[in-house]
């Protein structure tokens, strides 16, 4: 099972669009996928228009209780978009976990994956500089995909996120623990490809210099915002085809 986290330290840079897209594309291709919404804002949860099976049975239950072995399988909710796609929802109270650091709490998410019937787990991370939620994702993941828009904020978000991943690896080395997290690349989402502004062109060049920029650039299309409002998958609409094609090519590069 591959566990892939989508991460940036900046908000609004297509983390959720990237996470949901990779998860849904993989599910529609026949993989069994679990999407974990780790952001207290619950953007993925709202987009997929799903509710926890019972009140409080979202990712916060995993993070807020000791020994949540196997709880991911119990909590995951099947999506309307594909029988192969399930979601572990999030909720506002997940933010409480950012205020306390119980012993070994960073391993709870990984612990919950025991016995999980999935080929792929995709984690939609909150935009944080480290912190307990990010640490949970890093501990559970073997792959990190950075999300960025072509802007100074977008580049900053990737720089900060890479720094967090580097620090995590260093800490793991210090305690002699394995760190098998692989940086799969940077996704540049919601890109104006017809007329690119100078700041966007500069940001693109900065991302290229990392040698980690994944191609193609994902084009900006209004359909994505529209389907997020109604809870649909843009891949089911003609206007969503360019975005779907781009993310499908990216998925081939980052999903094992």
């Amino acid at each position, binding site marked *: 099972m591959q566990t892939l986290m989508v991460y940036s330290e900046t908000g609004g840079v297509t983390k959720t669009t990237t996470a949901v897209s990779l998860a849904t594309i993989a599910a529609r291709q026949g993989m069994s996928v679990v999407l974990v919404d780790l952001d207290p804002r619950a953007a993925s949860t709202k987009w997929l228009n799903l509710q926890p099976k019972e*009140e*409080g049975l979202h990712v916060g239950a995993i993070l*807020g209780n000791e020994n949540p072995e196997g709880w991911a399988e*119990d909590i995951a909710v099947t999506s309307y978009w594909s029988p192969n796609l399930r979601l572990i929802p999030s909720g506002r109270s997940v933010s*409480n976990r950012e*205020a306390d650091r119980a012993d070994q709490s960073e391993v709870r998410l990984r612990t919950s994956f025991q016995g999980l019937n999935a080929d792929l787990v995709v984690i939609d991370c909150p935009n944080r500089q480290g912190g307990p939620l990010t640490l949970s994702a890093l501990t559970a993941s073997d792959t990190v995909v950075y999300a960025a828009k072509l802007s100074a904020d977008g580049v900053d978000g990737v720089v900060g996120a890479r720094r967090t991943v580097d620090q995590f690896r260093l800490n793991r080395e210090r305690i002699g623990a394995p760190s098998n997290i692989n940086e799969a690349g940077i996704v540049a989402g919601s890109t104006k490809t017809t007329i690119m502004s100078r700041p966007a062109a500069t940001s693109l060049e900065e991302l290229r210099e990392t040698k980690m920029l994944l191609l193609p650039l994902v084009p900006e299309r209004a359909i994505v915002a529209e389907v997020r409002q109604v809870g649909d998958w843009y891949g089911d609409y003609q206007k969503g085809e360019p975005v779907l094609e781009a993310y499908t090519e990216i998925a081939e590069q980052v999903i094992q």
Partner: protein
Amino acid sequence: MTPKPERPTSLARRAPRPAPDENVDPVDYSPQATTGDEPTPATQRSEKLPPTTHKPAEQPRPKRRPSEKKNHNTVGKREITVPFSTRLTPEVVQLIDQATAETGMSQRAVVENAIRETWG
């Protein structure tokens, strides 16, 4: 010291349950608030949620009057607590859930009261 049980009495996996502070809004949250029994005005104002099969939110309790004996486990205004972690059999967990549901007390209060009554 009570002897250890020979083997688990039940092989049923512990079912997921909400976090203890599920009904605490992040604006009002503090690590102390999840373990204490004292209500805050904010938790009393918090939005009422539909009934569930899980342990309900802590019921508000009267604020401590100045004449009441102070808890000597305090440093200034902060109560000293220590983390406590152990595995429990599923039926004991169920008893704790039942006790919290029936009394409205927190898990911590239920466990502390039981220990004090038996061994205090």
